[in-house]
């Protein structure tokens, strides 16, 4: 197991290096320049500015410098925010995004799992149809529509929670988290429902019943863990969805999160910040996928990796 984890971590670093390389060169193909009013400057001025930011050197040299700094953990300096390092920029912006993402993920999957379980256990009853309807709504309504609805009713009509911004403690996080949670909620409800119905019809559930287990024990002790496996598979992509979804939701709620930062850095051609944000998103995803792979083995002993033992 330790050997497996070690190997995976090495691969994770290689993946990250490849992503850094790819996005570095892709970014060079972006139209425009990070320097504001580039066209109005004369050649001497251009040379001075480019020298200052280190973009006068040939691309391979720039790449080498960037990678060298990256290895030290330095993501470079922002072109737009004068003299600010990208590390500082991201660190400040990361917190709201992480809080929102984590809350949405936890709330969405837990409520989704409960809804899905309810639907499966009360198969073909009002509860089933009700939760299926909710799940379909959750999948088909885009998060920004849901976010606007929440803002309108809960914030501006009923004044229960703030409309936006990030200045009211946990209260500021509730509505954006809810808006973000709808996707994972709907998805996990659908997955758990389908899988639970199938698992509840399997032989080992009949055997559990034949042992004298009651409905609760059958659902939670026997069926749940087996129904969880397919959901785990989609948790990785789901986390990715949350990251991209947060771009929109953060905009709507005017939250100074990393998504908002990402969009504005692309708008201003802030190369160092784009690179930094991309790498962070990638690192996040790679870690999530790694965790999911480990979770697999924890949940299903049949796919547990055995280091060396075979």
């Amino acid at each position, binding site marked *: 197991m330790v050997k497996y984890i070690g190997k995976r971590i090495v691969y994770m670093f290689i993946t990250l290096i490849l992503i850094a390389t790819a996005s570095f060169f892709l970014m060079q193909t972006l139209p425009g320049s990070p320097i504001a009013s580039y066209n109005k400057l004369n050649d001497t001025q251009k040379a001075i500015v480019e020298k200052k930011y280190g973009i006068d050197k040939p691309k391979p040299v720039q790449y080498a410098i960037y990678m060298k700094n990256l290895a030290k953990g330095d993501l470079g300096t922002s072109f737009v925010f004068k003299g600010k390092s990208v590390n500082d920029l991201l660190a400040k912006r990361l917190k709201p995004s992480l809080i929102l993402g984590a809350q949405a993920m936890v709330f969405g999957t837990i409520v989704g799992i409960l809804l899905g379980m309810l639907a499966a256990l009360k*198969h*073909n009853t009002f509860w089933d149809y009700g939760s299926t309807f909710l799940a379909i709504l959750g999948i088909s309504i885009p998060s920004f529509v849901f976010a606007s609805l929440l803002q309108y009713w809960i914030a501006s009509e009923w004044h229960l929670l703030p409309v936006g911004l990030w200045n009211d403690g946990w209260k500021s996080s509730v509505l954006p988290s809810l808006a973000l949670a709808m996707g994972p909620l709907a998805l996990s409800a659908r997955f758990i429902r389908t899988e639970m119905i199938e698992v509840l019809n*399997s*032989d*080992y559930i*009949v*055997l*559990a*019943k*034949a*042992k*004298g*287990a*009651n409905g609760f024990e059958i659902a939670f002790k*026997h069926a749940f*863990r*087996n129904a969880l496996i397919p959901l785990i598979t989609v948790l990785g992509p789901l986390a990715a969805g949350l990251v991209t979804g947060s771009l929109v939701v953060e905009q709507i709620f005017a939250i100074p999160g990393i998504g908002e930062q990402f969009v504005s850095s692309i708008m201003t051609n802030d190369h160092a910040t784009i690179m930094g944000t991309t790498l962070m998103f990638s690192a996040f995803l790679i870690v999530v996928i790694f965790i999911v792979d480990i979770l697999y083995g924890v*949940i*299903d*002993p*049949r796919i547990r990796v055995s280091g060396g033992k075979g």
Partner: protein
Amino acid sequence: MTKILEVKDLELSFHTFAGEVKAIRGVNFDLHKGETLAIVGESGSGKSVTTKSIMRLLPESSAEYKNGEILFEGKDLTKIPEKNMQKIRGKDISMIFQDPMTSLNPTMTIGRQIMEPILKHQKLNKSEARKKTIELLNLVGIPNAENRYKMYPHQFSGGQRQRIVIAIALACNPKILIADEPTTALDVTIQAQILELMKDIQKKTDTSIIFITHDLGVVANVADRVAVMYGGRIVEIGTVDEIFYNPQHPYTWGLLSSMPSMDLEDQKLYAIPGTPPDLLNPPKGDAFALRSEYAMRIDMERRAPFFKVSETHYAATWLLHPQAPQVEPPALVIERMKTFKGSRYYVDQTGGTV
């Protein structure tokens, strides 16, 4: 012989989109203490449904008890509340399933799966239950039980898994053990081992066993009594010798004739013509009449009652009615009947017909 279970006039239907499937249409039998009753019949004859109905393991949304009762220790199992039924399942009546590859929970160690009914039904703490689990694993012949009880089902072979399923069924020393084709999914050598194991255990624990199978070879090996089911009813019931050597119902004749035999190698293997009846619209008379060359007009009109052949042997066929014409069973069956004392074809040592 004390009766431990009585099934009386049991009728059960499934409600499906196509309509009401009358899966069991009046089943009667008793189970005595310490005996093995085999229920045989082809697929769809209602064997499994009968036993699952005893344990109430059929889906409540579609299965309905229409009539009759299942008496166990004075209680009618078709009527008691689910809570009480949960106390009987796994403790007094337990079950071994057909396919050991799918009947164990893949994400739970086998130790926990065996311990579950022990912890549930007996007042034992964890370490006592663990001791009992290891004893059970030893009893069913899983070597190195102390270490293996922490393993998962996929780490065992098919035969071993069936042994584990048997250990689960035996965990609380049940009074009745229902084995629903426990050897069908196993290869022949493992089959023999599992059958030996079950016989062994029965000797040690004096459990009553209901053994469902469509393999007559297995029946001859394990059963004390045999019930032959067809079209949701029992058509003939008797001791294993009576069913094998003095069968009375044309369906039993057909079953026995379609058994491959070693000494008749140049003969074509007999198969019963036709298909089992559609239980959505069950036939009015004898369900087997349409496939039987011995059918009489009355078979199409009315169901035959049970005629007594001996104290232990009953068959539901009009052929046993005093007014019925004498018919010759198939040659293979006559060969069998020649060896059975009390059959009309019995040939004693001197060679005369009795």
